[in-house]
């Protein structure tokens, strides 16, 4: 690992005063950043360790629940308020990484984790995300993990998070702060598609720090699921994942939420498909129609063509699980 200087402020304002430089990074759990530094993908000159900032609480606020950026993934997954109101989020978190990583990884860090594209990680290969303008060796290479939706000729990487897929479905809001002020970013606008600037994963500006994620008060505690399909049954990134939630009143679906993971550069939410389902009775034929609509523009890269059909079936199954109120178990790997 290359050398760097290090500071550990205890106030947000102190951390922000040090931020903004191209070679400065915030360090939280370190589970992704430290790894990328070992691989020479990240080469910061200075690390601002934010782990002592007072951002580690889950607070009730009038509009919902405010999750501090430093709340650990494991603490968030097992928080009774989250388990009771947003079990979809707990489920997604427990599908991610391993217990050891969840004990270290934070909410803000999870939002900002980088793609696990093999070519992004391997500095001997060309990658537009790592080195803008260098080209993309993933295209035409090994593409099992890669995008089928929203990719560009410059980048076909996927966002690796499970937590973010649930947060996208739950209409979360990201709170950020910089030396000049604070702002909030709707979750769907936080991560971005690669376009011709794949080096930018998010709409965060230089010098901004994620301080919290807010979940709206609307609870989804009956009809939800997080269905994750992967190459091994635990501790693997998603090939395809589906976060689904809805309300069912008199046999009719309302407020349908559907987000996909493992298929794009960001958690993939399709509001047209949600509208298609809303106000109707839950039926498999209808779910298939929604899946077809979501995947109409899906494009494989060869080795990941199978993900289009996998996603189609996962959407149908996920909606069915949510409608029946039988969320996918984390421990029982059979898909019911």
């Amino acid at each position, binding site marked *: 690992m290359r050398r760097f200087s290090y500071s550990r402020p205890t106030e947000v304002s102190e951390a922000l005063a040090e931020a903004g430089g191209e070679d400065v990074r915030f360090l939280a759990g370190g589970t992704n950043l430290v790894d990328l530094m070992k691989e020479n993908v990240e080469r910061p000159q200075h690390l601002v360790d934010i782990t002592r900032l007072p951002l580690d609480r889950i607070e009730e606020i009038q509009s919902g629940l405010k999750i501090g950026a430093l709340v650990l993934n494991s603490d968030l997954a097992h928080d009774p308020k989250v388990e009771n109101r947003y079990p979809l989020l707990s489920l997604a978190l427990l599908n991610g*990484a*391993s217990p050891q990583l969840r004990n270290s990884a934070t909410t803000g860090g999870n939002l900002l984790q980088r793609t696990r594209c093999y070519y992004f990680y391997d500095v001997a290969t060309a990658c537009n995300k790592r080195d803008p303008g260098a080209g993309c060796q993933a295209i035409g290479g090994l593409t099992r993990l890669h995008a089928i939706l929203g990719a560009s000729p410059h980048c076909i990487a996927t966002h690796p998070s499970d937590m973010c897929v649930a947060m996208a479905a739950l209409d979360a809001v990201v709170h950020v702060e910089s030396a000049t002020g604070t702002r909030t970013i709707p979750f769907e606008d936080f991560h971005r598609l690669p376009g011709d600037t794949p080096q930018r994963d998010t709409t965060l500006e230089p010098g901004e720090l994620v301080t919290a994620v807010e979940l709206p008060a609307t609870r989804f505690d009956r009809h939800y699921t997080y269905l994750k399909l992967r190459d091994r049954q635990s501790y693997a990134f998603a090939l395809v994942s589906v976060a689904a939630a809805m309300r069912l009143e008199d046999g009719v679906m309302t407020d349908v939420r559907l987000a996909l993971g493992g298929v794009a550069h960001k958690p993939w939410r399709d509001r047209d498909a949600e509208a298609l389902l809303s106000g109707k009775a839950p039926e498999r034929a209808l779910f298939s129609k929604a899946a077809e609509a979501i995947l109409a523009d899906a494009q494989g890269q060869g080795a990941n063509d199978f993900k289009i059909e996998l996603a189609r079936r996962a959407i149908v199954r996920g909606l069915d699980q949510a409608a029946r109120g039988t969320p996918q178990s984390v421990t029982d790997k059979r898909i019911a």
Partner: protein
Amino acid sequence: MFRHPQTTPKGVETDDAIRVQLSVNGEPLDLDLPPWTSLLDLLRHRLALTGTKKGCDHGQCGACTVLVDGRRINSCLKLAVSLDGAEVTTIEGMAGEGGALHPLQDAFVRHDGFQCGYCTPGQICSAQGLLNEGHAQSREEIKELMSGNICRCGAYPNILDAIEDVLNDRVSEPRMPE
């Protein structure tokens, strides 16, 4: 505890070192560390606690699992300086007085929960973390919650037997030391 002299690694300016206080297996330590030292490298290279293993060094295998303030983490991905003030427990700190085996160590021996043994310190620290967390009640749950520890010899069934044994004992005997 045996410890190498606190030498400064070759080529590192003393200005680069940061003073860190850590308790390792109950022993309070004042250390001057370059910030790029992982907890794993601190344990193995500076403190000669080589029970904690470096498998992948990328958080993918779990061989480096230790307990920090009672919670299991991958020591390879944690910068030691960021843990200032923490209590670290490694496999060397698990045994009791006079080298009496920890119940998990004893169970791993009884159930033959290893073949080559390389992953075992990480498995045992991880299993202790699992017991501390209290979320595993069944064999299936142990399986899921031990998935961060890879065993290339494939001793998984016996590892599960060992942990299940201690978990069941613990349920009936809550005074078991942690």
